[in-house]
């Protein structure tokens, strides 16, 4: 049996994970154009970690209260890891939108601190004796595995995607203006805080949901790599966005297939395939710099 026939025969197993990967890649690759152009790539890594703190905190609070938070349906809704994750990510996105800072503490430093503190908190909570027995389950919820994806996560991704598409369909010109030139936008009466908050909340929601579906590494990569690859090849934002989405979708699909047939880690393989799309842009840059 050929590799493809073997892959096709197992479609009942990969249909949902592949769909989740493709959906997540499409959404993140689109949002990634804003992320890369606004020079805030580390925000996606920080939001992913901070949403992870929410999941870990839900388990910890559940353990303290004597409730198992990954027993769906048997726990109070306030202890659902999904909600904890979204609330933490959205709170961080709101904080980042208000550009907290100081002349000695740039916004990037605040984001970096968020990432560092969140990473430490996740590790500390996961290694707490109270939830040590559930650490593996928590890890799967935290970082996903891109191999087994419950249908509920597909619906969550579709919902987050619909919200992102709606917000961008309604407010694209404002989001572009405040991202490109916030100073002029605010002088001309466009609320920079409101639209940055909207953009950051959308990014936070998509990252939070996508991290659970496909894992932290692919989420970070899909937010940065396809957009960077597309930006190196295009000079018009209307071409950059579809090209970025196409790179992300193809990387997710091909990466999943390659990981299946070669028995490689799924998330990492998707990232490697996505990185291949950087090559044409890098070659173009090299050609320009030698002219």
């Amino acid at each position, binding site marked *: 049996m050929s590799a493809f026939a073997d892959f096709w025969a197992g479609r009942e197993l990969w249909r949902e994970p592949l769909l989740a990967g493709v959906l997540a890649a499409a959404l993140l690759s689109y949002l990634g154009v804003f992320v890369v*152009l606004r020079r805030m790539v580390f925000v996606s890594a920080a939001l992913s970690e901070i949403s992870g703190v929410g999941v870990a905190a839900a388990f910890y609070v559940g353990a303290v209260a004597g409730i198992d938070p990954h027993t769906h349906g048997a726990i109070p809704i306030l202890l659902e890891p999904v909600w904890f994750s979204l609330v933490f990510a959205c709170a961080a996105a709101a904080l980042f939108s208000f550009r907290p800072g100081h*002349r000695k503490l740039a916004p990037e430093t605040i984001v970096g601190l968020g990432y560092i503190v969140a990473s430490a908190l996740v590790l500390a909570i996961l290694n707490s004796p109270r939830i040590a027995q559930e650490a593996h389950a928590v890890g799967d919820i935290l970082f996903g595995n891109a191999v087994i994806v419950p249908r509920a996560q597909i619906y969550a991704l579709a919902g987050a995607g619909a919200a992102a598409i709606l917000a961008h369909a*309604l*407010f*694209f*010109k*404002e989001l*572009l*203006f405040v991202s*490109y*030139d916030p*100073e*002029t*936008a*605010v*002088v*001309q*009466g*466009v609320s920079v805080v409101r639209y940055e908050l909207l953009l950051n909340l959308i990014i936070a929601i998509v990252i939070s949901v996508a991290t659970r579906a496909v894992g932290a590494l692919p989420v970070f990569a899909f937010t940065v790599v396809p957009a960077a690859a597309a*930006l190196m090849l*295009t*000079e*018009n*934002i209307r*071409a*950059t966005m579809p090209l970025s989405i196409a790179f992300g979708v193809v990387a997710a699909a091909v990466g999943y297939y390659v990981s299946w047939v070669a028995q490689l880690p799924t998330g990492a393989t998707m990232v490697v395939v996505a990185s291949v799309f950087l090559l044409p842009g890098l070659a173009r840059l090299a050609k320009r710099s030698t002219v």
Partner: protein
Amino acid sequence: MDLVRLERAVIGYRTPLLPPIDLAMRSGTTLGVLGPNGAGKTALLKSMLGLLPLLGGSLVFPTGRPPRVGYVPQRDRLDQSWPLSVLDVVLMGRTSLLGPVRRFDANDRRRACEALEEIGVGELAERPLYALSGGQHQRVLIARAVAAEPELLVLDEPTSAMDPAAERVLLDLVERLKRAHNLSVVLVTHQLTAVAGFATEVALVDRARGLFEVGPAREMMTAERLGRLYGREVRVIEVGGDMAVVIGPPVKGEEERPRRARTGSTEEAG
């Protein structure tokens, strides 16, 4: 009629930069805001536009609403690596006219193209931003401000890094736009030549000396006042009807005087 008025306004980021000031931006005038680097010009501008909350006093809009502003930021503050065309950037000026949800239509594109034609760079509409020269980029930003159909045109250091000829061309362009659209203009600069012969009113600002004076250009652009502002000997001479300002050596005792703020934060005091 006044478009904007600052009344006993205390401006600053956390602490006052200047003594309480009174300043009225009258319709049809050109106000030059002049001062050395770090004098508080940008803080004054932001306070006038309502972007920087006053620490005291009040900001009054006598027409009952803030004026529509066309803003030309300092060119080097914008990122030219964005994959945007010139038309994309000029259309941004129409964002607040449209309001949320509505998309740019054929009328907006026509108005944006007209603004580019008026500025003399109509042929650049489809050109990518990165391919523009510095002067072209500056004109595109002015076209964006004009596309906003402003009552008040605000230019923040528009002629910095320009040679004198280019500076003159740009100022003539702004003067022409002012007449054509019945605009009021605020020009923030540290370049004396940009203000002399262009502004009808001048505000002199220097937070290091706690100095704020405003009045008709002829009264403000004197050797005595400018000398006080810069701590140097200044000569103001007329050449063929135009005003020229010559800066001389420091006034005695000024060499040793450090240029530091008496009060306030140093950030964005420009």
